[in-house]
């Protein structure tokens, strides 16, 4: 072609070990190891059996991390997931108590979650002017509100027949079933985000949705899918939470949205979109969960645990900024 100067452009990716170790994920791995050592020192009860026993409730929360990570990569946010968990769990219990077979109960739970996510998605994609924050804030109130109405004046529903949910809470050896499911889901969602065209589209939308749209990405369809899948994951979370609680009440899932956002952000996923990956998100989820377990075991005031998590979160997001500033200064000197 004309104007060709014969210039060549490098196209071989550089794989340097240094780069990997100094990445955020690398730092998280180091932190993960350090944390485990720290936990073992402070808590005599910190061992595999206890961790595996204490974990299922937190593992159920981690399901939603995958959806939330996708939503954050898109540059959106969903603060209604906790309420979706509440509504799904409530309806699952109602369905189970109505005598439906377990398969149908599971279907109801997942369908309700999916439907809630779909409603979020539909509103957001039909009214693109609205920020996700305010829409999911309204649906947060509405979804939990509907659960409150369904739960009636008792405010809680308990399973009459727990056998089906007991099966969900079963353990394979010492390891709970939900652990395997979380691992499988983690692999699937990580791979989709990192390796597939769909994942690439998420990053494109999160980085610049206009340019993505011009390049032929069906932006609104992708958003609708992601919000719906997040609803489905909230349903899944509700299912396993119910198998731990044998019931649901108006506070089920309260505050989960902040928990999972904190996990994702600590894992290096930016709320501004287009940045981060699930490897970081998953490691950070385990860091937060294990820290909570260990601090719980030494009977630290739970509010202090929240203070520590809050402080960690702020430090974590401050580090890249400080790092950039130092790098810039160094470059400045070298120039």
């Amino acid at each position, binding site marked *: 072609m*004309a104007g060709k100067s014969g210039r060549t452009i490098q196209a071989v990716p550089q794989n340097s070990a240094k780069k990997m170790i100094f990445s955020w994920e690398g730092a998280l791995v180091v932190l993960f190891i350090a944390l485990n050592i720290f936990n073992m020192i402070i808590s005599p009860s910190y061992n595999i059996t206890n961790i595996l026993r204490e974990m299922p409730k937190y593992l159920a929360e981690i399901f939603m991390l995958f959806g939330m990570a996708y939503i954050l990569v898109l540059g959106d946010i969903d603060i209604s997931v906790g309420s979706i968990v509440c509504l799904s769990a409530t309806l699952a219990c109602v369905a189970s108590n109505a005598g439906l077979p377990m398969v149908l109960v599971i279907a109801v739970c997942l369908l309700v979650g999916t439907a809630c996510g779909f409603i979020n998605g539909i509103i957001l994609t039909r009214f693109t002017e609205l920020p996700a924050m305010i829409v999911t804030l309204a649906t947060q109130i509405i979804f939990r509100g509907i659960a409150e109405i369904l739960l009636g004046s008792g405010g809680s529903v308990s399973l009459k027949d727990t056998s089906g949910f007991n099966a969900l809470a079963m353990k394979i050896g010492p390891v709970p079933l939900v652990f395997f499911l979380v691992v499988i889901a983690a692999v699937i969602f990580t791979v989709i985000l990192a390796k597939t065209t769909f994942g*690439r589209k998420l990053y494109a939308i999160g980085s*610049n949705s206009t340019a993505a749209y011009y*390049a*032929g990405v069906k932006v609104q369809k992708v958003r609708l899918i992601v919000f719906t899948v997040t609803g489905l994951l909230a349903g899944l979370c509700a299912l396993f939470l119910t198998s731990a609680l044998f019931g649901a009440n108006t506070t089920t899932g309260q505050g989960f949205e902040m928990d999972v956002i904190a996990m994702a952000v600590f894992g290096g996923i930016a709320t501004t979109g287009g940045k981060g990956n699930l490897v970081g998100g998953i490691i950070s989820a385990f860091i937060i969960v294990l820290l909570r377990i260990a601090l719980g075991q030494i009977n630290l005031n739970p509010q202090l645990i929240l203070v520590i998590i809050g402080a960690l979160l702020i430090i974590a997001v401050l580090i890249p900024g400080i790092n950039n500033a130092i790098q810039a200064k160094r470059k400045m000197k070298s120039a």
Partner: protein
Amino acid sequence: MSEYILELKGITKIFPGVKALNNVHFQLKPGEVHALMGENGAGKSTFIKVITGVHAAEEGQMFLEGKEVHFKGPRDASAAGIAAVYQHPTSYPELSVTENIFMGHEQMKNGMIQWKAMNQEAEKLLARLNADFKVTEEMGALSVAQQQMVEIAKALSTNAKIIILDEPTASLTQNESENLYRIVEALRDEGVSIIFISHRFEDMYRLASRVTVFRDSQYIGTYNVDEISNADLIKAMVGREISDMFPKPDVKIGKEMFRIEGLSRTGFFKNVSLNVHAGEIVGMTGLVGAGRTETIESVCGITKADSGKVFLDGKELHVKQPLDAIKEGIILLPEDRQRQGLIMSWGLGRNVTLPIQSETAKNGFNNEKKEREIAKQYLEEVDTKAVTIFDPATSLSGGNQQKVVVAKALAQKNMKLIIMDEPTKGVDVGAKAEIYAIMGELAKQGYGIIMISSEMPEILGMCDRIYVMCGGKITGCLDRGEASQEGILQLAMEKGGYDKKEEAAK
């Protein structure tokens, strides 16, 4: 008293990793219009920001009316009588015109902003510029040309002795530019010194008495406009000679491949019909806001037209979203590269392969190796100045960014019609020539090309046929032979268009 109102000596400015200015000089005489030229990335904008105190230079001295000054911030510069109108309008779209004019130097009384007085003052300023909009309007509701006028009014409102115009005509059409020239001349006659940055030679010839050229962050020289030839100036800017600016190849025009019939969208354009033949470069010009971009965006599925038909190769298309148009082979190079064309934080390679990733993918998994090969191939084909395909788009100059957008289009194998919206906007002269060359090459290969542009020379230099739009309607279609600057201008300002003529015929 010095001969110069403003003089800069040995300015060096360092950004993390790069020297943006390296020992540059500049001298501005009172009451002159001084052009500052150079390719993108030559350091002009940085230089301006040093003058206006936005950036502090690491080395060098600045003299204002013979006295050395040290600006600690934009406030100091503004207090010293220096005002700048930046390349990207630095406006506040949600705020009123008055407020945009007076931001940072509001008229105060007892600690309260005097809105009434400011509105009156703003009206006076706008009247001086022959502006036809209200001071209470929201900035975001104005056209680019009107926003530019507000920016100039803002400079005037500070009673500046030196006004810097950074590419003021880049987004303006011919006659809007004319209006700007008159304003600049009037200011000069009032004794204001003006620094004028532009890629358009016509701006320089029309206005400036002297020109200073920067290249690669360095000072090249200062020349009297009357004494330097166009070729020499280009050579000074680019560092080499450009033999043929508009390499329009002689291509045999094929059969009609693309046709629009009666396309309308309420409030934007009405009853637009045009056609393109294989190997033909079709120009679309007119004033900004004439509906050119909006028409094309409807064709490409960005927005929806209310009525009308679009045909490609004789088949009617039903395009609902950009993907449909892309699948049919209609490729758009959007006007705003940084917002619409590229994902600036991404590497070049990823940008190039974004639209085709599904085609190279296996079972939905990205084939990264193949994507890298494709990206490398096309980025090299358009001769992008980059080190690796992983460089972020932000690291490139405007012209090279545009080349990446072109590479992205070329990578789409099924491309039939390529639509370029202002392909050389903000692109320096060297890169411009290269982009024209690519266009010629594409025409030779038999693609249909539509080029939307406000720049008269490239429209006249590159197009086989030129559609002129005005007020949302096509007012005329000129062949290469019959087209002239005056003819186009007349059509661009004519209201009513075809309809009126048809009515008259009846």
